[in-house]
């Protein structure tokens, strides 16, 4: 168990996809389990609040999940991810504690980039550090060298949409036909 946890930390440290592996969660409010990630697809089941689920992946506003021996899609907004400490099932599931494990990994030693990290203290911008902070104008001025002005920002590869700040029920927004720039081949 302990060994598996450590290997989970190592995997998380070197691979971003590990964190996206199966996660455990719970239905936060009565939700339909759909056949496909569309609201007008077939409803396979009705999942009551607090149903335990396994999350397979996210696609836009939907999670593909497994619950009560069925597999399908639920709205992202009806799901809460499990916490490491209080919802841990008896079975040793190392991916479920992924985020907590990652943080533990960060605090207990982040490898080469921070030799001065002590075991449990927050490094930088914890409450204590903020209380004791002396203004650093040099650091502030150093930010200028990374600044990007509006004329330099045309290479995002994204297509903008029109969306109002205060939504009303009648306004629907559809996805843009945005394509990532040149060699950026995305898997989704």
């Amino acid at each position, binding site marked *: 168990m302990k060994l598996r946890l450590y290997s989970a930390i190592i995997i998380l440290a070197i691979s*971003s996809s590990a964190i996206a592996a199966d*996660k455990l969660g719970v239905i936060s409010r009565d939700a339909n389990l759909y056949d496909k*990630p*569309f*609201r007008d697809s077939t409803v396979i089941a009705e999942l009551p609040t607090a149903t335990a689920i396994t999350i397979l992946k*996210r696609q*836009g*506003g939907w999670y593909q999940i497994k619950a009560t021996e069925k597999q399908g899609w639920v709205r*992202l*907004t009806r799901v*809460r*991810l499990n*916490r*490491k400490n209080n919802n841990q099932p008896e079975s040793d599931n190392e991916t479920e504690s992924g985020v*907590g494990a990652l*943080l533990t990994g960060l605090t207990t030693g982040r490898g080469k980039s*921070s030799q001065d990290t002590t075991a*449990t203290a*927050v*490094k*930088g*911008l*914890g*409450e204590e*550090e*903020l*209380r004791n*902070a002396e*203004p*650093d104008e040099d650091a*502030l001025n*150093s*930010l200028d060298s*990374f*600044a*990007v*002005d*509006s004329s*330099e*920002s045309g290479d*995002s590869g*994204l*297509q*903008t*949409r029109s*969306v*109002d*700040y*205060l*939504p*009303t029920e009648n306004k*629907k*927004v559809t*996805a*843009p036909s945005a394509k*990532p720039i040149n060699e*950026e081949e*995305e*898997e*989704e």
Partner: protein
Amino acid sequence: MNISPTKLLLGLSLVLCSVYVSAFDLGFGGGDEPADGSSIFDIGDIISGVKDISRTVTGIDEEDEIEIGRDAASVLLGASKPVNDPELQRYVNRIGRWVVNQTDRSHLPWRFAVLNSTAVNAFATPGGNIFITDGLLRLLNNEAELAAVLAHEVAHVVQKHHINAMSSINTSGFSGLVKLASMTREGRSNKMASQMVGEVKDMYLRGLDKDDEFEADSMGTIIASRAGYDPFALMAVLQTLDSVDPDNSELDLLYKTHPPMSDRLDKLEPVLDQFEEPVSESPVLENRFNRYVRKRS
């Protein structure tokens, strides 16, 4: 910066006028009107505009806002330095700039930086200084999530949440804050400077009003989606944070200064209901994100 009383008065009245106008522009940041023009006189926007006028009626010169923001940023940078990775910092600034271009305050001197802190948090200061900690950055999965976090902070600046909060800390309100800011710069009197530093610290230790946080979640989601990113990315980030053990010390300050994650998720749900499927085509740009962020692990 020297401010004569006449100039201050003139500046204030100009600001009041422009606040009035820009408040009604809120729904159409960056001039990107809806194609069908249907929402030009959206009642929701007008209500929001009125609310905004009342909140900023004690107005503040944008120059002062920027200066106060620089003071605040230098205090935060006193607690944590930028990560020494020019490529990464430049990347985060490119994302941030693309995001702020979707707002009506893109003209501000925006600066973005990743701070070398294991704490999980992000900060904004007035006038457009946005910081994300390395601890939070490492919890994110893709560029859409990074853009969403930056957009949340950008929304605080667009709505001047921190200026409002700081003026409530200063016993003389806005005028006291403005006076403090200008006197600190002119005289550099140690007493004034340390009062300013103290008020900045109070503000960031106390946090914003919880409604300001809900508003930043909602506006941030919309700003990021205007920028073309997956609209659900901010909710995904909040869900990730919600799954972290709340007793983890890296989240102490975040939780002390923000409403409970479950409340934020609940408030965000109706905002997301407007986004019709399929939005799965909205890019999350995981590869580009990994190229800059994961290479360091």
